[in-house]
């Protein structure tokens, strides 16, 4: 009567997809916030905020920028897949 198996499948699919998407976007932010090289000077003395900070623009290596935008593009693909799932005309 109660389909426990499909509940387990829903749970696994939910957690796997949510974690993937969140991890991808978080990695993108982490790459954007990649520390400057040591010669870029000491950490700025502006007050930090654990929740609301933007990234420091100084001295991020270009590989990190590329990696960051790759992560953002991948998470955008995840959102597009979500739209594909939502719109019946797209998946038949």
């Amino acid at each position: 009567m109660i389909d426990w198996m499909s509940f387990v499948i829903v749970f696994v699919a939910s957690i796997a997809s949510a974690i993937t998407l969140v991890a991808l976007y978080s990695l993108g932010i982490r790459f954007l916030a990649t520390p400057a090289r040591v010669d870029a000077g000491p950490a700025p003395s502006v007050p930090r905020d654990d929740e609301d900070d933007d990234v420091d623009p100084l001295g991020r290596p270009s590989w990190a920028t590329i990696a960051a935008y790759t992560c953002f593009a991948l998470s955008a693909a995840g959102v597009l897949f979500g739209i594909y799932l939502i719109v019946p005309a797209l998946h038949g």
Partner: protein
Amino acid sequence: MDLTLIVLLVIVLALFFDFTNGFHDTANAMATPIATGALKPKTAVLIAAILNLVGAFLSTEVAKTISGGLINEGDGGVLITPEMIFAGLIGAIVWNLLTWLYGLPSSSSHALFGGLIGAALVGAGIEAINGGVLLSKILIPMVAAPLTAGVVAFTATKVAYAITRRHDGRKDGRGRFRHAQVASSSLIALAHGTNDAQKTMGVITLTLVAANLQDPGSGPQLWVIVACALAIAIGTYSGGWRIIRTMGAGLTQVKPAQGFAAETSTAATILASTHLGFALSTTQVASGSVIGSGLGRRRSSVRWGTVGRIATGWLFTLPAAGAVGAIAAVIAHLGTVGILIDSVLGFGFILFIFWRSNRNRVDHSNAIAVPDVNRAGRAVHIGRKKGVRS
């Protein structure tokens, strides 16, 4: 009994129910981006309204049965009359307005099912109800939805903070999660639009079929689709600010990374459940996500009192909407006079709730005290927030 009068009343009530459905559920998608300042309140409800409007047109496959199997309809079962639907809608609307007044997120589908069950009990007795379906479609998901979403959001929040954590005292860029929040919350709004307006389309279409105004088995007519899409979009735009306040600030204080994790969890859980066959209520999933993400963020706290009030509301949704639906059905049995009495009482109740809500207005300007993104105004934010608890 004048058939066209009751059909007309059902259509009007169904559209009003659709409207309450919209403003009840704006919070599911938009409470957290409003709370973090990712979207301005009015922008957020506008986006949600447009996506609900678009969503309603994207999917017009309506249910074959009004109650989704909860009531034994069709061959050998109960004949669901327009009067029953009428009484059921009154029960659902009364419950939706009452929970809105108290800022409680609750499932509009459950309210509709409750109202219909109450009306069917009066019309056909206890045999009308399918207990197995009640357990598997309402009661188990009521526990499973917030638990699943809660665990998913808790984990996702932990992951988001762990990946972006810095130990060297430099900025971690977590404010950037706001950009992603726009996408994740829009996804929820679109999913809602392809799902919820269809319930009302189904109710109206099945009523038209029952009244021999439409061929059985045919889809909703264009004017039904347009009217339902507009009703849910206008409802969504009007905001349901009391529920937005509860979801965005009443359960826990929401921060960008956490908000993004919660919204992604909501979207993922809803999409997984729709496509893998274990239907869950959007409202219950979204509430679970916000609570789970609140537990997952350091230095945050969940207001368990609010959680308890919401859970109590869920427990009462079915019986309370059912009781009102049953009373409305009893009165409707008087015939045309009864239908008119029901209509007057229902309309009076709607006016009373809106009058009562004006005593402490909650709208886009005061639903949530949002931190100013461009200014370091955190102290102001926390200080102001104490005053807005409902």
